[in-house]
């Protein structure tokens, strides 16, 4: 018989309280319990990055995190980044650069790149590649994703510089 545990956490800025099976992953919690399907299942083993989310600001494979360990934390998914200026710049750049084909890896890529721009606002191509080395893409060959991330960082940095003047 499964053991349940009650947890409280913040998801995309909203307080949550729910009772979860101790074997449940954060990915299952998001997709199957709460019903936010933007975070994707690609492998369930932390190898593909399709389920990347932010936990207290750090990027994490949701499939490797137990739901019970989300207690007391702040979770952000692709849906929660709708109004985030970094994610917004990234989404625009992904579209403009052709960084999206089947799109299944894209939410994870955008979340991971959002985290990169938070810690390194103006990454070069090498930094962008390192940042997404845990995110697999089978369609694009990565180059356009890298171009999009670099471009989004540069545009954001320009905007920020403009604001300061």
């Amino acid at each position: 018989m499964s053991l349940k545990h009650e947890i409280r956490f913040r998801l995309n800025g909203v307080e949550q309280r729910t009772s979860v099976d101790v074997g449940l992953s954060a990915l299952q919690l998001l997709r199957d319990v709460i019903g936010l399907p933007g975070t994707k299942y690609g492998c369930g083993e932390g190898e593909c990055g399709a389920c990347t989310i932010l936990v207290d600001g750090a990027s994490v494979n949701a499939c490797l995190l137990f739901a019970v360990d989300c207690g007391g934390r702040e979770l952000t998914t692709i849906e929660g980044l709708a109004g985030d200026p970094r994610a917004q710049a990234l989404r625009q750049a992904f579209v403009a650069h052709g960084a999206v084909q089947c799109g299944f890896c894209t939410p994870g890529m955008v979340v991971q790149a959002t985290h990169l721009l938070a810690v390194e606002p103006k990454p070069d191509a090498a930094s962008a590649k390192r940042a997404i080395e845990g995110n697999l893409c089978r369609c694009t060959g990565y180059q356009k994703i890298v171009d999009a991330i670099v471009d989004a960082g540069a545009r954001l940095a320009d905007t920020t510089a403009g604001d300061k003047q």
Partner: protein
Amino acid sequence: MSALLTPPAASGSLIGQRIPKMDAPDKASGRTRYIHDIDLPGQLHAAILRSSRVHARILRIDTTAARALPGVHAVLTAADVPDQQPIGVAKDHLPLKRDRVRSVRDEIAAVAAETEAIARQALTLIEVEYEDLPVLADARDALAPGAPLIHPEPHGADPAKPGLKPGMPIAFAGKPDNIAMRFDYTHGDVAQGEAESDVVVEDSFSLHYVTHCCMGVSGVIAEFDARGNLLLYSNTQVPFLHKREFAEIFRMDPGRIRIIQPPIGGGFGSKLDIYPFEIISVYLARATGRPVKLLFNREEEFLASPTRQPVLLTLRSGCKRDGTLTFRSVRTLHDNGAYTSWGATTPFVMMQTFSSLYRVPHCDYHTLAVYTNNPYAGSFRGYGNLQATFAVEAHMDQMAEAIGMDPLAFRQKNAQLQGEVSGQGMVFRSCGFQDCLTSAAERSDFAHRHAEYAAQRNAPGAIKKGIGIASMLHVGGGAKIYPSDGCGTILKLDDFGHVTLITGASEIGQGSETVLSQLVCEELGLPMSAVTVVNNDTDITPWDVGVHASRTTFIAGNSAIGAARKARDKIFAAAAPRFDCAADDLALRDGHIVRRASGEPLIEIARFLRSLHFSDRAELVMTTFYYEPPSVHQDKGFKGDVSAAYAWAAQVVEVEVDTDTGVVRMLKVTGAHDVGRVLNRLGIEGQIEGGIVMGQGYALTENLLVENGNIRNPNFRDYKLVTAPEIPEMDIAFIESMDGEGPQGAKGVGEAPAICIAAATANAIYNATGVRITSLPFTPERVYRALHGVLPPVPPVPPIVERPA
């Protein structure tokens, strides 16, 4: 070099522009709903029990405990579905295995339950008793006397029950030997060609197992309504063929089957066949009366998806001292796996490369596809062409070296030209092959680097650089395999000047809906924002043969243009009397009907459409068009002009080989592609870059390890896809040969970029080290062994006796 010039774009033309994909904003926001994200009210979840043995008799299956588990609605084994019918390319495959399992993926039982967790728990409660049978794990043993037989006895439905069509077989007859398929092709006289040769080379090549690794795992949702109509949410790339096949299997009227394709998380050819999991889900939906959803997990995706066709190949080639090719003789052995899917038919494409990439006066080609207990091979981007090109392009370099000719010049001397007809009967109406070779070589500084790296081979230091070139030919205007290779379009222009483009062509991420919209807007003088695409519901969309053979831009594009031109003509016919001019004097531009000569705007298209609608002769502008390419079916000898156009490419790969460790790094890929014409620059770059990196994985890292029928690495940790830091610099040139039949001059490109990479990499490694490796992938271990002379040679394909006449 006129073909290199970009044709002048009309003012405001969308052709050749960088058009963002229409589905990209939703995808980048996590809003796209793939099959994994769809749940129907009342839906049950399914899971499949697969064989734990490679080859065994099933003695007993006990599902009692599974059926008793709370939350389980149905448990099915073959005994529960006596009307099963064999499926697949050769109809040799029962969805639920009755008395024998032939590979580790084999489906034995299936459960539908309230949750996926309950379904999977129920699987653990099913007891199966097996009696092991001898395993046939090496295709070379398949024809040996005493080899285990994989399909010795007939299997399938109750022969008393008729098939849907009179005379249609409902059971697989069985095979007294292990031969699944064979192909024999000849043009010219190979013996004569060999007699005329100054140089003859022969080598054997071994091409390994890889698999598609779509990021979205396989899945299906099946539901019957109260009238018995079947609705499938499916990832298929061939919805209309699928519909027909489901109808045959379930003895239903095809009109009562509707297939909806949600956005698909990667295809690459993996979704061209019908698979047991799809049929089993329908059985479960029928048994429970509820919608049933089945999703693979990643391990299952590795175990139960098709692979690229593994090939053992012996090639004998010759040329004269002046560099003229004389003959090519090929034997290949294809490991079919336990069942026959599209992999067995890859010789259709392979023989094109042997017979027609270069001018070869004499060529023969023989393939046997044999059953084994291994995973079965399906179709995969390139469809045999990566394998054939790997062998042909190795020999092009070897022969060039043997006669002391530059490898580029040797290729240029033998490359096909526009207007030529190949020995196989392919007519090259547009052909930028020579320009591809020249462009790729110039952009990569090939000639200079090739000489320089060869000269530095014996210089001190462990790191050696090398550069290699390879070329390819692939269908670029569809492939006439089915009775029709066509695609239908319905165009609806509404009162607001908005266009609904209803196309049979499926979107699998490649960007078809964007390029088709672009072609329609180009004809109608409308902005991209004026189009909505409907492309995923067989109850609405007109027929299309499917997404394969790099055909969608060409075939569906011509179909969309045809429908748009009919709409335009209809508008002009109605507008001409109103503006007191001839229909020919009108044009559509920037959302207006204009005078063709002066460009003077006469009326907004939207307003004119409304005036047509709300007049005493009320009419709506809706058109249909079906495009059938002017290609022909091949004859029994596989000869004929099977595609309406052919695509060409040359790719140059530059590598660095660490001779201490065997590690090969891919530094740069320079590709020159004859694409006919660039339609969406952003999209075509994406197709080519993605194809190059998929080719890189095939060449360097990907290897599905199959040992005695078992898959050893069914996960992304041990099956190594290329990651972002490993990609090469990519320089891509487009050769615009302006195909006369292509939409706006374009040809297909979907498969082309993956095809040459492994072949060019092999040539680059040879250039760096002087060592020729004829097996893939170039992992550090394989390269290290080869450099130290301890890589076992690839065994030759046993002689294949020609089929008696």
